């Protein structure tokens, strides 16, 4: 019998896109190189509802004070506040897996399905704002979109959440977007990156 711990059952919808680019699957970021990474299989979960803030607070998870902002916990989790009542928790370093249906909803605090509904891409390195300027109408330059900011917008005509945050010592964009469109978006971002690559 296989179990859920058998990771071969759980696959990023993107894995064929970067079979020739192993760096894409790693969390090792070279700050001197523009790179795109697939974090889709990394743990994330979300909660929404009037009691979501209370539930997270009870779990000793600090949350941003306003929507469209994020903060980082001591353990490296990213806490994204997407609205007054919606929070996503991203674990860029975590390796363990979370299942869709294991996140139990409680009254007034409903678990979301971001682990599977959204792919998680990370764009890192120099010129990331210019790369995104070829795909997205929001000003993502550091001066207008500092670390800790979130934009819920359209990237290459696909709905996306863009989070600007630190990963190690590097500033990166996490892009959370429709998992079914992920390979399309992967190609679109790769195409936009070409002129900035060595």
């Amino acid at each position, binding site marked *: *019998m*296989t*179990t*859920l*711990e*058998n990771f*071969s*059952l*759980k*696959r*990023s*919808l993107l894995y*064929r896109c970067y079979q020739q680019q192993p760096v894409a699957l790693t969390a090792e970021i070279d700050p001197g190189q523009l790179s795109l990474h697939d974090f*889709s*299989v990394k743990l994330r979960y979300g909660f*929404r*509802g009037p009691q979501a803030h209370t539930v997270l607070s009870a779990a000793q998870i600090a949350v941003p004070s306003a929507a469209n902002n994020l903060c980082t916990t001591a353990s490296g989790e990213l806490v994204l506040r997407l609205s007054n009542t919606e929070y996503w928790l991203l674990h860029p370093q975590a390796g363990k897996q979370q*299942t*869709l*249906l*294991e996140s139990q*909803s409680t*009254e*007034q605090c*409903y678990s*979301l*399905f971001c*682990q*599977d*509904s*959204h792919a998680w891409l990370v764009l890192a390195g120099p010129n990331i704002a*210019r790369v995104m*300027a*070829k*795909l*997205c*109408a929001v*000003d993502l*330059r550091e*001066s*207008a979109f500092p670390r800790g900011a979130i934009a819920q917008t359209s990237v*290459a*005509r*696909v709905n996306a959440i863009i989070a600007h945050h630190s990963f190690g010592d590097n500033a990166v964009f996490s892009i959370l977007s*429709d*998992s*079914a*469109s992920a*390979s*399309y*978006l992967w190609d*679109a971002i790769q*195409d936009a990156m070409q002129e900035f690559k060595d």
Partner: protein
Amino acid sequence: MNNLQRLKEPMGSLIERDRPVTFSFEGQSIVGLAGDSIASALLANNQWLISRSFKYHRPRGPLTMAGQDANTLVQLGGEPNVLADNQVIGAQMQVSGQNYSGSLESDRDALLGHFSRFMPVGFYYRSFFKPMGAWEKWEGFIRKKAGLGVLDLEAKPEYYDKEYLFYDLMVVGAGPAGLSAALKAADAGAQVLLVEEQRLLGGALSYHRFDIQGQQATSTLSSLVDKVQAHQNIQVMLSATCNAWFTDNYLPVIQDKRLFKVRVQECIVASGAFEQHVVFRNNDLPGIMMCSAASRLMKHYAVKPGQRAVVLTGNDTGYLTALDLAEQGVQIAAVVDMRESSLVSELQAAVRDAGIEVLCNSTVYEALATKGNKHVRAVDVRKISAPGEVASQARIIDCDLICMSAGFMPAYQLLCQAGGQLSYSDDTAQFTLSNLPAHLHVAGSVNGVHQLEQVIKDGQRAAGVALHNLSLGDETIEAVTCQSNHNYHWPIFSHPKGKDFVDFDEDLQAADIVNATRLGYRDIQLVKRFSTVGMGPSQGRHSALPTARLVAKATKRTVTQTGITTARPPFVPEKLALSAGRSFNPVRFTSMHHRHIALGAQMIAAGNWRRPAYYGSVEQREQAIQSEALQVRNKVGLIDVSTLGGIEVRGPDAAEFINRIYTFAFLKQPVGKTRYAVLTSEQGVVIDDGVACRIGENHFYVTATTTGVDQVYRQMLKWNAQWRLNIDVANVTSAFSAVNLAGPDARKVLQKLDSDVDLSIEAFPYLACREARIEGIPARLLRVGFVGELGYEIHVPSSCGEALWDLLMAAGKEFDIKPFGVETQRLLRLEKGHIIVGQDTDSMSHPGELSLNWAVSRKKPFFVGSRSVDIVMAQTQTRKLVGFTLDAIIEQPKEGHLVISGDDVAGHVTSCEYSASVGKCIGLAFAAIGDSQPGSSISIRVDSGALVEASVVSLPFFDPDNQRQEL
């Protein structure tokens, strides 16, 4: 002249003298210098004839040397209408002229010019429409003559794309006003984008002489450019055109093959002004150009524009140009000043001191041409006797160059696109701009300021206003005024023999404009449309003002009363590739997509999803579908249904919400059961359907159609914004992958896998739903019967979808499991008489027409559309969706074929397939209500035009007792 005879430095700021570049023009090898434009390289090689005019095929050479006119449109390889005075030469370029018959030098169609009196403006509209049938005879000839250049129909697409840019301030134009504005704003901390259409910074500073000594421009240019280039807050874009102004300073800028979509808080337009020509006979000959063009040729390209020049001017610019020309060795035959005397006496004195004759109150009445109108050879100069009129006595002056300057027209296009009002003073012949929107500012000569010191101050003034708006400055802003007058009030000298061109693009002469007014087109906009003046590539840059003057005079009004034509985007011709390039067309793949590809599926679009239609070759389509259908009926098949919409509804009011949204009753739906869910619009029309699964007391998982789920989700959010029920609604379509395992052996296949659900008929009956784990994968299992067989819809997290497919295909191997596609599923569900919303329904279909009365609860007080459903179903029904059959040998109807009842169209076929299981063609169609009972027949008009008789039958076509799906 050749490259060895180029003018000495500092002339030639754009060329590299030690880098020759060879290209071809009209098949002849031409050697230019790196940095040359095509036009400058040709002129350096004494090739003045560059192209032919649009209508009369007259020889044309450079007019502006700034890409502001259509005189130098050439064919560059496969690309027509390239501006030769802008395009930089490259090695091996293949350049040719345009619009000639025979050769550029010897154009047979040049004879057309002799018949110009028979081709007055508007003659197209009035000449070819009668007698009846005349157009058909003329059309081929006219179409052959129409258009410029040759399209390469074999051209390969090139990479064009787009990019957003964001700045505090954008300055359009890097002349002295733009440079000073950018510097002041950047010094105050603003992030500035400086956009310049030309290849170098400086604008007029780079070619124009501002003072008698000729020192002022050089020193000012050096100072400003050095500071701008060193400034960290200024981003410079050269060879970039701001092609429009849109609301809130949304500014498209074109540079090379990229369209930049610029968003700025403040915008300063310092676009300069277009030098204007003088209207006289033969004013279009090669060798006649703007004063600024001659200056650009010398300063930018070190090309001597002629040997002996006449400068025709209505302002001081001509005098300064004459000084420049003389310094570079051009003999100045005369400065012909249309004014009674030069306004700056020292300037006139300086010119006379240089030995140049000055003829005041005079004009060029006619330019005399060499053979074939190839070049100017002399001018007929006459005294001006009245505005637009000359004395009879002529003085012929030999020359090979005429430089002219009638004045300057603001480059107002972007500003007028923004709603700015361009006003003209009939007294001073000057323009002013007003009514600009907030955050859009104007500076420099486009603002009517021409004196260099004032231009620089005006740029700083505009920057000051912008900085104030950006909260980066609070200094007092003082207005800048300018006393100089650059515009001569009537530089139009019509000639009885014509060829006194107002619009070079369209070969429009002064009489053409006047004649348009005589035909009743008094409004300037009507004159434009009737005569096509200003509609060519230069978009009225030089023709708008003389046209306004001519119309004003002809209609006995002032220019102010007449106005000028409207400026609309784009500012310069814009390649469609810039808009089309790198367009985004999102496509969605299920987690099992690559398994389908590996199995040979033919993929089709379903919205932006890609789904397998069937598995096999296109040639074997029908066999593949029939084979897959029989496989499901007889054994077991597997279809990817991940594209089905999925919506989670959770919360204490979930059942109440579902009950209000859908037509059926859901309040008492047991947990663990599914129920068919029909959604009607407020108009009572069926707009979607799916299955509502009650996962828990306060938890529903609802499916929706592939292309309808977004609409359903929006509707749910909209309604609950009003109802305020205590629920959460989430669109989880992409979160779940799903398959339908269907066929008599479906249970056996599923039992092969390790799961924690009892699959027996007793424990898991038809229409039940269960949460379970299959080989450890969390899953939702639904026993539904869309294809009419024992089946399980299995919904799993999308990250596990591919693994689930693999597991089921492996488990089903011993049962000969086969995948089946959407086309097969359409046939299978048709056999069961199940409708597809959108295919078997239209925008008028209510539940009664679709025989869905059973799915509408009459006991509950409300559902969305209930009132309308009651109304439309209470009315006399006129049509109904019915099942029909035909003998297989009859021509098969297709979807959309009409159902004919007597003389009327009663409806149309919505689905029709051949069913091997039924042994007939089966289908669904809207039929007249009188023909809707089983046993009736309906007439269907098929492709051949024949009427095919079909029998109306009861549904379903297959397994009428629905026993198979309930096994």
